[in-house]
C-alpha cells in the first residue's frame, strides 16, 4: 500500500494556501463600481503596455477629445445628441466594468475546469484501455483510478461556479442575463437550449453519468483483486464500452455548454473534438508524470521503460492530433472569413497574440521535436520536461478558450490566474494522492496483468 508522503501533502497544502491568497487578492482588487474600473484602466494605460495598447490609448484619447469638443458645441445647440453620446460612453464603461469584475472569476473558472478536464481525460483513456482489453496498460490502472478520483470533487466545484454564474455573481455567460437576451435576437433564438435550468440539469446529468461509471469501474477493479474468476473484469469491459459511447456525446455537449456558450454568437462544429483532444493529451501526460513520480520514489517497480515509452508515444501522437484539430478549426474559419465566425480568431490574434501562438509552440512544436526520437521517450527526464510544457500549454489553451470572451483585452496573468492554477494544482495533488493510498498500486487480479508486466518493446 502507498502512503501519502508528508512532504507532498504539505506541498499541496502550501499550493492551496498560496493559490487561495492569490485568488482572494484577485477578487478584492477587482473593481466594485464602474468608476473604479475606469480608473484602473486609465492607470494601466498610462504605463504603456505595448504597441497595440499605446495605439489604442492614442486613438481613444483622440476620440474623447474629439467627442468632448463636439459635445460642447452640440450641448449648446442640442441636448439630445449629448445625452446620446453619454449613454454610449456609459455602456462602454459598464462593459469594461463587467470585464474587469469577470477577471478573477474567469481565472478561477479556467483553473477549475482545466484540472477537472485532466481527470475526465484520464477517465476516457482508462475507459478505452478497459474496452480495448489492452495488454500493456493494466500496471497503470491504479494510477489512472487515482487521478480519476478528482473527477467528482473537481466536477462539483465547476458546477458550483456555473451555478454562481447563473445567480449573477459574475457575467461569464452573458446569455444567463435576461436583459442581454431580450436585446439579442441570436441568443434569443437559442434559449430553447441555452436556458439556465436546462443548462444546470445537463451539467448535473453529465457529471452523474461520468461519476457512476467511475464508481462502478473502480468497484469492479478492486473486487477483481481478490476474485477467483474474471467476472468483474468482464463487467468492467461492458460498462467501459457503454461509458465511451455516453462519454463522447456528453463530452461534446459539455464543451458547448461550459466553454463555447461563453461566446454565444460563435460556434464551431468540431469544438467538442478540440476540447476532447486537449483533455486527452493533458490526461495522458498527467498519467506519465504521476507514474514517473511514484517510480522515482521506489513504487511501481513493475512499470518498465516500455510503459513510459508507450505513454510518450501517446503524448506525442495526441499532441499532433490536437494541433490537427486546432488548425482545422482555424484554417476553415480564416479561409471563409465570415464575419460572425472569424471574429473569434481576430480577437485572439489581436489581443492574445502571445498566448495564442505561444500555446501552439508549447503544445505542438516543443513536444514534436522533443518526443520524436524513439530513445528520448524512454528517458524519464525528457518525458517530465515535455510533460510540464504540455500541461502548461493546455492550461493556456483553456485560457485562450475562455478569457477572450470573458475579459476581452483586459487579460493578464497575474495573482488571480497563478493563484487559481496553484490552488487547483494543490487540490488535485491532494485528492489524487489521497486516492492512491486507498488501494494497492498493482491491480493484481487483472487477467492481463502478466502480459502487462512482461510488456517490452
Amino acid at each position, binding site marked *: 500500500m502507498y502512503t501519502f508522503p508528508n512532504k507532498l501533502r504539505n506541498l499541496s497544502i502550501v499550493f492551496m494556501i498560496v493559490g487561495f491568497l492569490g485568488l482572494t487578492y484577485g477578487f478584492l482588487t477587482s473593481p466594485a463600481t464602474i468608476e473604479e474600473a475606469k480608473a484602473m484602466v486609465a492607470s494601466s494605460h498610462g504605463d504603456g503596455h505595448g504597441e497595440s495598447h499605446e495605439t489604442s490609448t492614442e486613438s481613444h484619447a483622440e476620440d474623447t477629445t474629439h467627442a468632448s469638443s463636439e459635445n460642447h458645441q452640440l450641448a449648446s445647440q442640442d441636448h439630445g445628441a449629448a445625452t446620446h453620446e453619454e449613454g454610449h460612453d456609459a455602456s462602454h464603461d459598464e462593459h469594461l466594468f463587467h470585464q474587469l469584475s469577470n477577471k478573477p472569476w474567469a481565472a478561477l473558472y479556467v483553473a477549475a475546469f482545466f484540472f477537472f478536464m485532466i481527470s475526465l481525460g484520464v477517465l476516457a483513456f482508462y475507459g478505452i484501455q478497459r474496452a480495448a482489453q489492452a495488454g500493456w496498460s493494466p500496471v497503470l490502472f491504479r494510477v489512472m483510478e487515482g487521478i480519476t478520483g478528482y473527477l467528482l470533487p473537481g466536477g462539483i466545484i465547476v458546477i458550483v461556479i456555473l451555478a454562481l454564474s447563473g445567480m449573477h455573481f459574475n457575467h461569464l455567460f452573458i446569455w444567463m442575463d435576461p436583459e442581454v437576451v431580450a436585446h439579442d435576437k441570436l441568443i434569443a433564438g437559442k434559449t430553447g437550449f441555452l436556458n439556465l435550468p436546462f443548462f444546470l440539469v445537463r451539467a448535473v446529468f453529465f457529471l452523474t453519468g461520468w461519476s457512476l461509471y467511475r464508481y462502478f469501474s473502480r468497484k469492479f477493479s478492486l473486487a477483481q483483486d481478490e476474485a477467483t474468476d474474471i467476472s468483474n473484469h468482464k463487467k468492467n469491459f461492458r460498462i467501459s464500452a457503454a461509458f465511451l459511447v455516453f462519454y463522447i456525446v456528453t463530452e461534446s455537449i459539455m464543451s458547448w455548454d461550459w466553454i463555447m456558450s461563453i461566446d454565444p454568437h460563435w460556434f464551431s462544429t468540431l469544438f467538442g473534438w478540440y476540447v476532447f483532444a486537449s483533455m486527452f493529451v493533458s490526461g495522458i501526460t498527467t498519467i506519465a508524470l504521476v507514474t514517473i513520480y511514484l517510480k522515482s520514489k521506489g513504487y511501481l517497480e513493475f512499470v518498465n521503460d516500455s510503459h513510459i515509452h508507450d505513454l510518450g508515444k501517446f503524448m506525442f501522437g495526441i499532441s499532433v492530433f490536437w494541433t490537427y484539430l486546432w*488548425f482545422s478549426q*482555424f*484554417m476553415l474559419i480564416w479561409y471563409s472569413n465570415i464575419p460572425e465566425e472569424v471574429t473569434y480568431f481576430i480577437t485572439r490574434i489581436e489581443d492574445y497574440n502571445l498566448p495564442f501562438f505561444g500555446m501552439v509552440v508549447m503544445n505542438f512544436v516543443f513536444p514534436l521535436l522533443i518526443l520524436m526520437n524513439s530513445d528520448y521517450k524512454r528517458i524519464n527526464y525528457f518525458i517530465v520536461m515535455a510533460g510540464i510544457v504540455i500541461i502548461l500549454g493546455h492550461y493556456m489553451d483553456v485560457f485562450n478558450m475562455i478569457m477572450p470572451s470573458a475579459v476581452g483585452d483586459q487579460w493578464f496573468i497575474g495573482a488571480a490566474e497563478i493563484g487559481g492554477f496553484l490552488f487547483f494544482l494543490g487540490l488535485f495533488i491532494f485528492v489524487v494522492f489521497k486516492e492512491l493510498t486507498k488501494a494497492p498500486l498493482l491491480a493484481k487480479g487483472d487477467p492481463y496483468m502478466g502480459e502487462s508486466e512482461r510488456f517490452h518493446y
Partner: protein
Amino acid sequence: MSNKVVHALYDDDDVLLSAVKAIRLDKHHIEEVYTPFPVHGLDKALGLEDTRIAIMAFIYGCIGLCVAVAMMNFIMIEDWPQNIGGKPSFSYLENMPSFVPIMFELTVFFAAHLMVITFYMRSKLWPFKKAENPNPLTTDDKFLIEIELHDNEKVLTALLKKSGAIDVSIIEKPE
C-alpha cells in the same frame, strides 16, 4: 575460405528465435536468416545494429517540407499570383495557412517514398533482380538459418538438430 554453408530449416518462429539465441551462445556466426514474415525480436536476438532509417526519415521529411514551401511560393506567389477568396497574394506568409495541407502532404510523401527507395538500395533490391532466396519454402511458411562452415560440420549439425530444426543440409555455394 570455405564456401560451404549449412542451411537449417524451422517451422515455427518461436523455435527459430530460441535456436538463434542458442547458436549465438555457441559463438557461431549466423550469415542470414530467411523468414516468410517479420519475426518480432529477431533483430535483437541476431545482435543486428539498430536501423538508422528513422534519422533519414526526418531528413527526407525536412526536404519535402522545403520543396513544398519553394513550390507553393513559386506557383502561387511569384510566377502567377492568384487571388483566391480575397486573400492577399504577393505574400507567402500571409497565405501560409492555406498552404499548410500541401506542406504536410509533401513532407509525408517525401519521407515515405524516399524511405522505401533507401530501404531497397540498402537491401540491394531492384526491379528484375533474381531472388537470393536459397529455399522457396521460406516464402511460404518455413524459416531458414544460414551459417558458414569452417570444418565444424558435425558439431553444428548436432547443435541445429537439437535446437529444433526440421531439416539440416550442407550446401556448396557457387562462387
